[in-house]
């Protein structure tokens, strides 16, 4: 994604790409070739995305023929998704046949990730709201329309079904989102166009 400077501010805090992604200059993206931003995605300053942790087996393993060969996607972020300051997106890994293998991290559309979150989930759905300081453990699956409360620690391997509110350490289901979740602009879990527009 070739950076295209915004027309009004040539040296703004954000780099806006052709597809409308707004990526802060002060964010740390590793392995950018493995990161796919869906368009109109916002990456705030001090966000760290570890795109370098890809599925390919580490090269030190001589038995695996495909070692280090195919560099595929490691982080996929959907449209209008907002990643707040200080968050870390790190693809999850697990021991598979004695070797560490990374899995891609997929994040859906209109999802909000609060400040200083640590995300190691395998997938996060659409219209998900993740509160400040939440930790999503390895291989967590968060379905659509979920609210993760502030400071929640979602234990590794948890599946959060759609329409749930989870919180606590370890996180468990503490409630359900309203039936109108995700329908309204400006609400938690709602449409995020407005938030995207206000950035940069």
């Amino acid at each position, binding site marked *: 994604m070739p950076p295209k400077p915004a027309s009004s501010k040539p040296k703004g805090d954000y780099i806006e790409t052709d597809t409308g992604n707004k990526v802060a200059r002060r964010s740390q993206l590793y392995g950018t070739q493995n990161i796919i931003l869906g368009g109109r995605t916002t990456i705030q300053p001090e966000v760290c995305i570890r795109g370098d942790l890809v599925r390919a087996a580490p090269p030190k393993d001589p038995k695996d023929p495909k070692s280090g060969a195919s560099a595929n996607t490691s982080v996929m972020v959907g449209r209008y998704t907002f990643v707040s300051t200080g968050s870390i997106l790190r693809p999850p890994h697990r021991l*598979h046949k004695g070797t560490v293998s990374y899995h891609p991290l997929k994040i859906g559309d209109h999802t909000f990730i609060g400040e200083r979150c640590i995300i190691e989930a395998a997938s996060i759905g659409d219209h998900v709201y993740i509160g400040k300081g939440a930790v999503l453990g390895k291989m967590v699956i968060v379905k659509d329309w979920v609210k993760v409360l502030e400071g929640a*620690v979602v234990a590794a*391997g948890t599946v959060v079904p759609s329409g*749930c509110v989870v919180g606590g350490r370890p996180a468990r*289901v503490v409630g359900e989102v*309203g039936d109108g979740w995700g329908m*309204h602009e400006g*609400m938690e879990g709602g449409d995020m166009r*407005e938030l995207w527009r*206000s950035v940069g």
Partner: protein
Amino acid sequence: MSFPYTYISCPCTDVSTPINGSTEQNDDEEQERTFDPRSPRANFSLYTLEHLLYCEDCQQIRCPRCTLEEIVTWYCPNCLFEMPSSMVKSEAGRCTRNCFNCPICIGPLAVTSVHPDPVQRSLLGPWILSCGYCNWTSLEIGWQFKGLQDMRSEMGKLKIGGQYKAANSKTSASTPPTESTPDDDPDSVFTALRSFYNSQLSSSNATDPLLTPSGGINYSSPSSLARIMSLYTGRSSYGKKDPAKSTPMRESVDPSEGLQIFDPASDTAAIEKLRTQGWTSTASTAQQTEQKHPPRFTSDLRPTQAQLRTKRSKRCRTCRHILVKPEAKVQSTRFRIRLVALNYIPTITLKPLQPSPSTQLPLLDLNALPVLRASQFLLTLKNPLFDPVKITLGTPAHAPGKNSHKVTILCPQFDIGPNADQWDEALGDNKNRRASKLLSTSKVEYVGGERGKVAEAGKVWEKGRNWTTVVVEVVCQDVGEDGEGEDVLEIPVFLRMEWEGDTMEREEGGSGSGGGGGLKGEERKEKRELAFWVVVGVGKVGRLEGPTLAASP
């Protein structure tokens, strides 16, 4: 809690309002009364907008209290598999697959292999359950599983410590009461007791009193006579057995019949354990409630099966129409019917109107609102309807609570445009170009920021396509060092909306006020109104300080 917030009070808690949906209130007293968000009752009627539904037939807001729920699907939150409702009861609402929760932290447990060769771990057992959060494993209670297929039934046979239960009724019958360690597992004790009492009951009144053992009808026995008499006289005395007359039953006498003899050694062992291991070894209430048979010590806790969750449809309690009906499939997040209040009543947002930079007043901080100085807020109402809406806002002059903060809505009556298609507007005349301005909730606004605009009484602050912003002025009183929650400023606002909506199609002539003789293509308009209380949480009132007082004009 983060400020600002908006809660809507469902009218169903107001018992004076007729439930059948007519919003007319003739009672003057009712109209005099204002809503108090601090009253204990208010807790039960305040909801965020997204939790509210709207019944089109009753033309009223519906909250979780005035809807009925029906279960559409049962599913496991862990594996997302649907469970047929016929199985739910027999499985006690638990997942039958390998979904278990940690007994210590109630997080999910993962199945992992402890095969000595790390390469073969993904294929071969033995398997254990391990918690990714607190690092508990089933090895702590000595559990290992041979196969992945039926871990649940294997778990049923295992005792704490890893031995298999010896107590199949057949095997225990063959090895009679001599067994030195009676099975103290509550489940097997219960099954033994139940089978014992079942056999006792069936032997005490083995047959129907009307039938002789040979199969014929026995009219002469006193019990059958009593029964026949009760049938004819209509007295139901027969069904109630006199407890004094009930046949004496033998109690269980040996462990195979579920007898457990109290062993004083177990008590001393428990006391000894408490003494040596202390408080940390005892199970907490939260841990105990998860268990089938609450044990005393954490070492006796077992992994629990994941509890099923449900997808539910909702009906209006008054007219029984369906308001929400999700698709039955677990994975789907779509709805067949979803009548949420978001599509019918305006969304209400509040944001501070910052003082003009030239006055050099500090910016408004919602967690420390200035005291004894007027602060202004922008109250924005956004219309989701396709018809223009007339809004009347009312608020008590003083916010409820001990400290009467003065509240004024500068423009209590205004209109909001329809939520029409954006194309209509683009193709329309250009004089309303300003109205196409997008509502931006995140932008900071100042007094006199745009073309020196200042808040004026009776005038709206700004208007957009389907939204209108008015100014609310608040003068906070000094709250002092009052108790908890006294410094929170909440404004109750009575919102009344009037609009002309389309009448429902299935109403045949006559009832429609528009009087368009029931023609199909003709749109008839009907005057509608809806009124409810809204509570806007503005922020916390700050402390009165010397410099602040001096700076206030």
